[in-house]
């Protein structure tokens, strides 16, 4: 690795060094869960119907089949939330008595190979007395709708309500009120590696090792041990290389509980690799929401009051650990967005239906609420005859810290600056001229903007405020140097593509005066890493990064102390750089390896003043911070076919210090691509009986390289001291802003037709339907 010139600033932080993860992954040396051999393979038999009572399960002769009956001693999953009228609902790890969605696992078939397990599953039949399902959330709230769980009246599982004092008066006094209704259709995060688990029993220790594609290894250990009723120490969870997660691999997977139970019962190894159909139908879904907004504006188009109704379809069960309240409650807390607005009222409901359970997906509710609020801004701008950029300029928060109507504190950001950068990058006046010319030739171009905040890196209090029974937040890092001088950074964060091994190594490298390739980051193994929360919510670099720096500073202090003894110099004169401890201004120096060796083998030299070994631990539990960005895109809409082509996309963002600009850009580019898919292509479609009609990747359509335009990235770096590293999180922003910018651009393109498309994905079918409707009105 090239050695940087050591200047006054950080040497490694801020550099686009190449990832330490890459060589193995590029050479076919990645180690994913499905790569492990196992004595037994598992196939899950799943419900073919959305609702009903299980009457009988046939068992082919000689087959080893596990159902709820065998798992009677295993507790159901019952996620808890202590607020907002949350009704706890229980999910048995295999359906017990009833089925509640198509794809719900009913039985596990165990056989020596996947093919044999599939043959047996194929030969089985499950006799189910079908019941009427309820698929749509608003239908589920209606009187007389079938109940998914008897204890949740009206299928209402959680209901958040807020109204700021004096709200009605502010709303009533406003110059203009604008109402819009929006719909976000159901999404699947679709990591390229579907879920997979492998459990093996160790006869000597009596322990089970579960290797699985998870974002939260430690919490999986706790949850699974609790459900099975085994000591947590008897379970080791490993997240090896994980092929993307995007939130879908954050929640507890009931199938993994079955695998651990099987490994213990069979005293052997068992594996399950989810196939794509299972993943699309029965893993976790998200973003299935209806939103109604009413914005109240002054005569100057300044928003003064916002009311919102949010209905989130959460599916048949509640996910662990966040609970299914995560979407509606995040919507309620963050809907006012980055706008200066103090009068706010919201009712946010989570509604149970006979569909696949909802779980977090990159951005959670924010791609949906950003789409909603940014549509409101654009619809209002049209009514006032303003440019979309202008209405945002008049409303964005400018003074920091800013306390929102829901009590969130926005730290210093660059909301207006990033908007201005995006406007300049797309040359708005030039675009408007081009748009006019194009229209005269029957070609419909549009421009769309989205300004938003991304709440990131928040600690325990933020989760506690939601009333969560499990409050992730802090992260602990254990930093050790062994006698050979090898540096290990052990963290409970659990990256799966984010390059955290590289960025944590960069942070620690600067603290210890070492090159990053000398630093090994260890994660994803509950036996080796300290208890922690994993990787989600744009938290890992902020929180595990902060803890790494704190631990490294302790190690730095110890190395200096050791060096001062060995070099017989004052501690203040010792400098750590380029892998050696040096007495400043002299040639007296010792390599880190020599200090490490002495720390273990020559402790007598320290005369009892220094403890043996080099191992320091630090924990970081930050208050949270807000990144911000403006996304802007130009689209062309073919009004004959309804096809949308994204011509260009710009992201102007501010996530504080960029530890590795290469990785930062990668996170944003990937997020934007998912957002474009979200806006135009991807949709899980249910029929009225609760069957999923989009069960292949030829039906559920993640974008390809053809659908993604050139994306220009512009960065600002506000260093406001809110985090130890000055870095803010940015893993979700790409996916948060893009759907709003794209849907606004589509509407701008179709402005001459007077249509308003407030539903994503804006598929060709929906665009054509809207145009036909508009033409009917004209006639």
């Amino acid at each position, binding site marked *: 690795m090239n050695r940087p010139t050591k200047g006054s600033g950080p040497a490694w932080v801020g550099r686009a060094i*190449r*990832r330490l*993860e*890459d*060589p193995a*992954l*590029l*050479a*076919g*040396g*990645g180690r*994913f869960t*499905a*790569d492990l*051999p196992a004595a037994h393979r598992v196939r899950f038999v799943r419900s073919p119907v959305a609702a009903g009572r299980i009457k009988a399960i046939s068992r082919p002769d000689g087959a080893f089949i596990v159902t709820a009956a065998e798992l009677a001693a295993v507790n159901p999953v019952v996620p808890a939330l202590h607020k907002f009228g949350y009704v706890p609902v229980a999910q048995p790890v295999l359906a017990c008595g009833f089925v509640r969605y198509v794809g719900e696992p009913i039985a596990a078939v165990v056989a020596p190979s996947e*093919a*044999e397990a599939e*043959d047996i599953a194929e030969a089985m039949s499950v006799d189910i007395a079908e019941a009427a399902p309820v698929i749509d959330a608003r239908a589920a709230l209606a009187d007389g709708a079938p109940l998914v769980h008897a204890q949740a009246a009206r299928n209402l599982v959680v209901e958040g309500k807020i109204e700021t004092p004096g709200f009605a008066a502010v709303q009533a006094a406003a110059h203009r009120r604008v109402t819009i209704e929006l719909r976000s259709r159901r999404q699947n995060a*679709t*990591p*390229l*590696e*579907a879920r997979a688990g492998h459990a093996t029993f160790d006869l000597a220790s009596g322990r089970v090792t579960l290797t699985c594609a998870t974002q939260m290894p430690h919490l999986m250990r706790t949850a699974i041990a609790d459900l099975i009723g085994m000591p947590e120490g008897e379970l080791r969870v490993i997240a090896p*290389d*994980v*092929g*993307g997660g*995007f939130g879908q691999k954050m929640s507890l997977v009931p199938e993994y509980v079955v695998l651990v139970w099987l490994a213990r019962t069979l005293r052997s190894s068992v594996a399950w*690799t989810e*196939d*794509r159909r299972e993943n699309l139908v029965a893993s976790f879904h998200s973003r299935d929401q209806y939103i109604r907004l009413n914005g109240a504006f002054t005569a100057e188009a300044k928003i003064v009051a916002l009311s919102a109704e949010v209905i989130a379809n959460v599916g048949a069960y509640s996910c662990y650990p966040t609970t299914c309240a995560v979407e509606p409650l995040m919507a309620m807390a963050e809907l006012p967005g980055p706008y200066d607005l103090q009068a706010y009222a919201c009712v946010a409901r989570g509604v149970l239906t006979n569909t696949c359970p909802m779980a977090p997906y990159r951005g959670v509710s924010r791609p949906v609420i950003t789409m909603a609020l940014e549509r409101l801004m654009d619809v209002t701008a049209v009514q006032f005859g303003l440019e979309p950029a202008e209405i945002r300029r008049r409303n964005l928060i400018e003074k920091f810290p800013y306390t929102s109507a829901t009590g969130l504190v926005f730290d210093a950001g660059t909301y207006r600056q990033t908007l201005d950068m995006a406007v300049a990058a797309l040359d708005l006046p030039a675009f408007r001229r081009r748009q006019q010319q194009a229209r005269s030739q029957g070609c419909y171009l549009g421009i769309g903007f989205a300004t938003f905040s991304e709440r990131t890196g928040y600690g325990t209090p933020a989760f506690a405020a939601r009333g969560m029974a499990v409050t992730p937040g802090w992260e602990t890092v254990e930093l050790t140097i062994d006698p050979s001088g090898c540096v290990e950074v052990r963290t409970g964060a659990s990256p*799966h*593509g*984010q*390059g955290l091994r590289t960025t944590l190594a960069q942070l620690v490298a600067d603290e210890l005066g070492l090159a990053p390739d000398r630093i090994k980051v260890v994660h994803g193994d509950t036996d080796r890493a300290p208890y922690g929360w994993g990787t989600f919510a744009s938290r890992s670099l902020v929180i595990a990064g902060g803890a790494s720096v704190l631990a490294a500073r302790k190690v730095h202090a110890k190395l200096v102390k050791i060096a001062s003894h060995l070099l017989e110099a004052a501690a203040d004169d010792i400098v750590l750089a380029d892998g050696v401890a040096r007495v400043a201004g002299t040639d007296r120096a010792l390599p880190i390896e020599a200090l490490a060796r002495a720390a273990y083998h020559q402790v007598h030299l320290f005369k009892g003043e220094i403890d043996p070994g080099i191992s320091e631990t630090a924990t970081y539990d930050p208050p949270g911070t807000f990144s911000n960005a403006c996304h802007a895109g130009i689209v062309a809409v073919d009004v004959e076919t309804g096809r949308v082509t994204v011509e260009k996309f710009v992201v102007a963002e501010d996530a504080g210090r960029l530890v590795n600009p*290469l*990785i930062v*850009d*990668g996170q944003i*580019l*990937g*997020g*934007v*691509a*998912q957002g474009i898919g979200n806006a135009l292509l991807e949709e899980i479609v249910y029929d009225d009986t609760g069957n999923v009609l989009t069960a*292949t*990747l*030829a039906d559920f359509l*993640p974008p*390809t*390289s*053809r659908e*993604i335009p*050139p*994306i220009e990235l512009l960065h600002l770096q506000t260093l406001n001291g809110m985090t130890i590293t000055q870095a803010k999180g940015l893993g979700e922003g*790409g996916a948060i802003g893009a759907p709003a910018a794209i849907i606004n651009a589509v509407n701008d393109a179709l402005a001459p037709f007077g249509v308003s498309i407030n539903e994503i994905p804006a598929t060709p079918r929906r665009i054509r339907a809207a145009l036909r409707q508009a033409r009917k009105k004209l006639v």
Partner: protein
Amino acid sequence: MSERSEITLKVNGQLHAIRVEPRRTLVDAIREECGQTGTHIGCEHGVCGACTVLVDGEPVRSCLMFAVQAQGKDIRTVEGLANGEELNPLQRAFMEHHALQCGFCTPGFLMLVTGVLEREPDISDEDLVDVLASNLCRCTGYQNIVKAVRAAAADMRRR
């Protein structure tokens, strides 16, 4: 279910004598019978391209081909790209341009591109974007993959 056939697969120049059912897909045989797990399975219905390998030089979805069909053919997988520890120019370009994140789709992209550039070293940038649309990546948003492949193609042309 059915009789196993004895076949020999040649993977990265090495012969593997294996016994498989006729229904065994090539990707399963490569991964399990031949032990080469660098080739990944993403959808098993021929859309995502994660399992792309080269069969007699042509990119093939190995989830859509039976192992028995590959008998006697020259199969190349991601494990065959590097020269020992030394990554080849395409692999290096992926690293240089941050064209991978989780790395799950990467072997499929590398094999797709290897096959295409061997056949058509002067492929235009536009055609390249079309070819890359054969495979799915969920992490990178493709921009860096396109950059890396263009750089590798230019590099190979110079050699």
